[in-house]
């Protein structure tokens, strides 16, 4: 039994088929990069994993249980934009993740517990290199720093699955490289299962332990929406990195390829 099990998933909007017959098994700790042309369902698949949408057909299992039908703290997310709260300072943006689950009534901690949450948030922010910007508002940060903040928010929750929707799509190439290093470092420390949608092929190849290519197998030129995309290639990457991570031989990566 794998950690995430996707069985025969279809996603249709009316007569528009986006995904068809999607099957996928992913083990805990894998880092899946997802690439493909625009509009071929990568982001739709991510929304399914997130619980933002329910599949038209098929099942998504996490640890053998159906994925909750709404976003929750088992799955963290970083979007390309609008990932941070504009009205909170950097420190509160991260500390709020520790406050929400503990303070069901006010969503806010007080006294010693608040101090403790803030200390952990500071520790996390220092890890992503935002230790100098604790009192700033997101609007005062550069694009790269905002994404660092979003990553810190996601990681402090220690979710079992991390979903990244083109997280570095809007950043300069130089800054993007720094972000890759940061992401890999955090991933190797936490051993989270990561799904990342990207438009940048080299990013997909460099970061992941597994590359999923989404594409349409069948195309009807008169009815372009009649058929959906599938995973056409499933390529194991950086096997040394994965072996180091999971401590086992990476055979299971090939499970899908028959």
């Amino acid at each position, binding site marked *: 039994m794998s950690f995430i099990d996707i069985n025969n998933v279809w996603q249709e909007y009316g007569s528009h088929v986006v995904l068809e017959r999607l099957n996928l098994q992913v083990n805990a700790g894998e880092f899946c990069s997802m690439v493909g042309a625009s509009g071929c369902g990568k982001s739709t698949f991510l929304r399914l994993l*997130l619980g*933002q949408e329910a599949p038209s057909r098929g099942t998504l299992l996490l640890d053998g249980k159906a994925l909750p039908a709404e976003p*929750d703290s088992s799955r963290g997310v970083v979007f390309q934009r609008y990932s941070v*709260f504009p*009205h909170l300072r950097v420190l509160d943006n991260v500390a709020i993740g520790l406050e*929400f689950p503990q303070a069901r009534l006010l*969503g806010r901690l007080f006294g010693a517990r608040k101090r403790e949450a803030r200390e952990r948030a500071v520790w996390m922010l220092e890890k992503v290199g935002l230790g100098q910007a604790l009192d700033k508002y997101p*609007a005062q940060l550069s694009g790269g720093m905002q994404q660092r903040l979003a990553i810190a928010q996601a990681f402090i*929750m220690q979710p079992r699955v991390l979903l990244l929707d083109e997280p570095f799509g809007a950043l300069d190439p130089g800054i993007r490289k720094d972000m890759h290093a940061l992401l890999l470092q955090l991933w190797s420390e936490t051993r989270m299962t990561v799904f990342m949608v990207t438009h940048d092929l080299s990013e997909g190849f460099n970061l992941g332990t597994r590359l999923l290519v989404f594409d349409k197998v069948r195309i009807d030129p008169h009815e372009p929406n009649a058929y959906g995309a599938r995973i056409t290639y499933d390529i194991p990457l950086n096997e040394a990195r994965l072996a180091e991570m999971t401590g086992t031989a990476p055979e299971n990566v090939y499970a899908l390829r028959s």
Partner: protein
Amino acid sequence: MRHINRHPTRGMRFTLVLLPFVILLAAYFLGSAVRLEANPQDKLLPGMQQMLDALSRMAFSPDKRSGDYLFWMDTLVSLVRLLTGLAIASLVGLCIGITAGVFPMWRASLSPLMTVLSMIPPLAILPVLFIVFGLDELSKVMLIVIGITPMLARDLEHRAREIPPEILIKAQTLGASSWTLVLRVVLPQLLSRLLTSLRLLLGSAWLFLISAEAISSTAGLGYRIFLVRRYMAMDVIIPYVVWITLLAWLMDLGLRQLHKTCFPWAEGGKA
């Protein structure tokens, strides 16, 4: 150079700001002087001296009959009505706006209702308010509340729906419940918008206040203006109108300052 690319310099700008005010005042006092020249008893365009006399009579000497300083009493009574109305409308508008903006189930009922209610001309139901709430304070406050709550609620609902869905999803992945999400993510962002909406609705609020006071009241700025109209006392009406304008402008300024202090993140984040 194209006109769209010509910008005033600092001094020029200042002059341009003052210019229309100066022209208006000059035109008025010129007209007033001409009429007073012809007839010193003219009441239509009182001069500065007549208005100052009237103002000192209203503001700095007690009324012969009641012993009150009418100007200040009117101001106090009107402001209490206005602020009570605005406070109630803000509270109700915020609750409805957030509920309709965040919860789709509630939006299905509330949103069309608010759209229809906001189309009712509040002054048309003023008689109903007088019948239902009586002729004293309550009906005047209710007119303001009924007049601006639907607009406020609709504006805040739209604002709540403009919050990017990514933000709400992010909050859920951080473990927020519906309630804590509203409390810590939606509410702070909408409070900022509330102040801006209130600024825009101040004009309407004054309109409703003065209408209600004009029709049935025993004190208040609007009441006084309509009372002295019978004697064509322009020397009282004009200072009152200027005073109301000044109060409204100061409230607008106050709200803008409050917004700057409380919500630096909404002003481009310059904390």
